[in-house]
């Protein structure tokens, strides 16, 4: 379970988050939906502990990130906004590195690495160096290293960004599988349809504030709109930055 309470973050003159609060339950896929620049990435960065908020608090399974960042991060699998790889390491070495950083070692580590490489269908490039990987291969490596330690909570920043249709479908399938296993899944997107088909709950964020949240059906009902897209536009009050 992931929760934000009154989180504020300011970068210079820009107030990126103005008191954001929401909860993400286990066994659900929650979509963080908002136009570009709404504060989605900033909110997620606070959740996975690379950004310290100016006010408010973020917790993972009840552990306050401000109090024990490391313990909270141990319960997270993260596909961050930036997904850079090490060009001189192979795909498998990437996964091993992150597994070890999560405390896995020895046979247990190797078993988990083999498992995730098979699950994400990476066998044909697992032992090649990352230099020259396609976008799809890069995302797979990033997903594998995010999930190798079998995290209870999974946070993904625009996981289907730049993927082709096949890869996008694969990622969506993976998110459903993670939910069905009882995990807490939080991902951000600015693509309406994706959120509509995938999410059990939606948190709509605009200009650093949560403007609506609930199931897709609840959103439609509360805004009195037929389609989720119209509901979304009604919620954020403009069509600016929609994808």
């Amino acid at each position: 379970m992931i929760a934000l309470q009154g989180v504020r973050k300011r970068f210079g003159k820009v107030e990126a988050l103005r008191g954001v609060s929401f909860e993400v339950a286990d066994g659900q896929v929650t979509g963080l939906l908002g136009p570009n620049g709404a504060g989605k990435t900033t909110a997620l960065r606070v959740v996975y502990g690379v950004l310290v908020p100016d006010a408010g608090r973020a917790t993972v399974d009840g552990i306050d990130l401000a109090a024990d960042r490391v313990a909270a991060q141990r319960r997270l699998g993260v596909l961050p906004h930036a997904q850079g790889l090490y060009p001189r390491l192979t795909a498998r070495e990437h996964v091993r590195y992150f597994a070890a950083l999560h405390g896995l070692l020895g046979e247990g580590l190797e078993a988990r690495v083999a498992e995730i490489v098979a699950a994400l269908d990476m066998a044909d490039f697992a032992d090649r160096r990352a230099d020259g990987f396609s976008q799809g291969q890069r995302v797979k490596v990033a997903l594998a290293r995010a999930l190798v330690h079998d995290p209870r909570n999974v946070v993904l920043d625009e996981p289907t960004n730049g993927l082709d249709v096949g890869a996008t479908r694969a990622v969506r399938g993976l998110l459903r599988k993670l939910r069905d296993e009882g995990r807490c899944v939080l991902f951000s997107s600015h693509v309406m349809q994706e959120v509509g088909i995938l999410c059990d709950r939606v948190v709509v964020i605009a200009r650093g504030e949560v403007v609506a949240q609930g199931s897709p059906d609840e959103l439609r009902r509360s805004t009195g709109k037929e389609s989720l897209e119209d509901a979304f536009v009604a919620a954020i009050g403009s069509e600016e930055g929609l994808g």
Partner: protein
Amino acid sequence: MIAKAGAQPPALRLARTVLAKELRDGLRDRRSLSMALVFPLLGPLVLAGSFSLVSKDVRSAAEDSVKLPVSGRENAPELVAFLAEGGLDPVEPPASPERAVRSGDVDVVLSIPPEYGARLREGRPAPVRLVVDQSRRAAKVTADRVRERLERWGRVTAAQRLVMRGVHPAVIEPLAVEEVDVSTAESRSAILFSVMPYFLVLSIFMGGMSVAIDTTAGERERLSLEPLLANPVPRAALVLGKIGASAFFSLMALTETSIAFTLLPVIAPLEDLGVSFRLDPGMVARLWLLSLPLLLAASALMVVVAARARSFRAAQSTMSFLMLVPAIPGFILAMTPVKEKAWMKITPALGEQLVMVRWLRGELVPVEDALRAMSASLLLAVLLAVVATRLFEGGKLLFEKA
């Protein structure tokens, strides 16, 4: 279904994990490897090269037989034979001795006038003329040899005359001058080798530089820093691993440079210079050990500087400047010896270089001096590691450009 999280691994194990990854990555990087293994060799090679040049000059003039242009050879066959015995082979003189010497075509010309034989027989000073150019160093060596050989002949002849007159030759030598050269071979060579500490410090910085940049500014630039920071790793462990990787490459460079210096006498003909440079394994081991805390401080400094740099390129240019800073005092010391002050002994890099120079000069250095310099560098290393850890905390590094 979902595995339970095990115990949090100790920070040192995580630091080792980071170190292992950075080493694997760095050892596959051609730039990092060449910075650690190729460039540090330049110092010893430059020294070996310059020694070879200087010594070739000196040796050929001092030992090998030299061609000596002599005009009027027929006037003094005995003297010419005596010179040839001393390795000065008489050859035909140039048309104009003065011009030939001035232009440097020949080092020296000896001319023996026709009246030489008659004067010698009469027991009056027999004239010989030596044309030299005192301003030319290489020519001076040859001229000195000729002069010395001539004086020797003069003494031998004088002694013979005295004996013929029944006088002991010692009568004309009231003084027995004995020259004691107190400049030990080591102290003479130290003038040349005071640049050696400079090269050792330089190798430390060069060796780890590329890795320090790649693991910090490089990590941010290729967007792998954010995923890394999302891992449950104490920032201190992250920083230790990265400083350690940079230190490992510095260590490779330092070790290689040290070995190259021990091999220097093999490559360059140092004995010919009157320079005995005995860099025995014990001395090398001492220099190496003395450098270790400095090596840690340098690695930590480079990680801090590179982490704060705006970009990979900016880090590179800042670093090439940084590399020179600790070398400046050593360089000045090599040029103009300054009296050591207390603060100098505990200034990292400077303190070590002072001790190194004295060791190389063959002086006895109090152990405390070495330990003091090492402690100062170790303290600096710890402080800089703390600064680096701060930098990695709270996303400052990711989102706030320096």
